[in-house]
């Protein structure tokens, strides 16, 4: 095991950072340059440390992995990134690979498999968690790829996204009209457009869609930047 790669771990869960750092160092002789759950700190660590590999979670708060990834690239940091997450959503998988990650691993894969995958990614391979491989293939089969969250959101205007977000919080048209200082009829029109663009039939379906697809205004704007 002469291969000695250096990594930085980005995860907003301290326990995961600590567990993985020690596992990688002890088991695989991988050098962990730093770990953090904070976006600014992450950018600093990557800029100073220039690791061979960045291991990153997706669902982090307040700055999620996709947003952070876009920011890292915007800073001119080219270190390859591998995702290590609990999310088994096809949509996240698609977004991650579109953003140029070198691997997509799941936290419930088993520690030995995670270590092995990270070693291989360090050698330049691309590794996908077995559970996600079929989903990746689906994305390539015409007709089965399905529309991803980004595809849907791209169809909506900023205003429509904003209204969708209010719908997700259970607000009525009238309440939305008040908040946005526009007429009730305008809101109705927007809602009708949202429904037709998303192929839905009721405002509740739209609200459920928004919750399930984690629509927020910023996420909509950034999603295109990272995609």
């Amino acid at each position, binding site marked *: 095991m002469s291969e000695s790669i250096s990594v930085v771990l980005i995860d907003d869960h*301290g326990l995961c950072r600590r567990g993985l750092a020690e596992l990688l160092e002890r088991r695989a002789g991988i050098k962990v340059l730093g770990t953090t759950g904070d976006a600014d700190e992450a950018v600093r660590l990557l800029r100073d440390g220039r690791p061979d590999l960045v291991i990153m979670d997706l669902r982090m708060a307040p700055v999620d992995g996709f947003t952070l990834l876009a920011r890292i690239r915007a800073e001119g940091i080219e270190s390859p990134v591998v995702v290590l997450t609990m999310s088994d959503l096809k949509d996240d998988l698609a977004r991650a690979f579109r953003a140029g990650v070198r691997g997509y691993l799941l936290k419930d894969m088993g520690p030995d498999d995670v270590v092995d995958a990270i070693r291989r990614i360090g050698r330049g391979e691309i590794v996908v968690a077995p559970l996600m491989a079929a989903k990746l293939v689906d994305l390539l089969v015409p007709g089965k790829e399905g529309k991803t969250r980004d595809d849907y959101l791209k169809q909506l205007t900023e205003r429509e996204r904003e209204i969708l977000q209010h719908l997700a919080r259970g607000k009525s048209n009238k309440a939305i009209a008040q908040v946005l200082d526009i007429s009730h009829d305008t809101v109705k029109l927007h809602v009708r457009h949202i429904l037709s663009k998303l192929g839905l039939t009721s405002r509740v379906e739209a609200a459920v869609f928004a919750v399930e697809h984690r629509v*927020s205004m910023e996420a909509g704007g950034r999603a295109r930047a990272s995609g």
Partner: protein
Amino acid sequence: MQTPQGDRPTIAAAAVAEADPHPRAFDVPAARAERGASANDAAGHDATAAPEHARLVREALRTALANERQMMANEVHDSLAQGLTYMRMRMSLLRDAIRDGDDVRAIKYWSDVDSSLTNAHRRLRELITYFRSRMDPQGLLHALQETTETFLDRTGVALEFANRVPDLDLPVGREVQVFHIVQEALANVCMHANARRARLTLERKGAGYEIVVDDDGVGIAADLVAEHGEAGHYGIAIMRERACRLGGELTLDSAPGAGTRVRLYFPAMEPQTESRL
């Protein structure tokens, strides 16, 4: 029935409303706001208004359920999934240590798993308690009230709840973070502080809220507070992580013999971000 003003339709409120044919009993924001337009002409004419209201109530209920489900998924992710991942990693190292005959490390990894299991169990208990109390239209405040009322019996520490925000109304995802931070602070009071009395204070501060947990216990040495973070008492790191998700901050003041004060400040508005899985 009074529920706080705000965006969050509560499940119990919606459920009660659905069972009640009288519009005045509806207390779901969507239904309430839609009704505003026709309040004059619809008053007293339940027969024509009822189907429309029933639809609005159903819609509000489904939206609330979708939000609740998302919040629960986030909680399981934050509370349990990370602990399980950690334990599996520790078990893997434990196996190595046993194979190498390294007793010192074996004992260390074993005890990491052991304390992580204890923590996971406690968090699971909190989640169950919280999900159960979420069904109450009063949400977080009621959950805190319930915690306070049973605290003395459970822990032997007299806990006083000074609530200066009787109309607190937060989105469910924020409520659950606050609830867990308070639970964590209170767990420290009963496990480490050796306190006789404790006080939980909730008040409005500027554009946000402040929650303070004070106790008259043995306190923690300053260097331990600083060091403990990630390595020692997970509680402190986890409280900080949760405070960060709220866009807020957590401070811990303590000195040996002088009790401990955990202070959480968080802005009333949600930071703009995606929710997690």
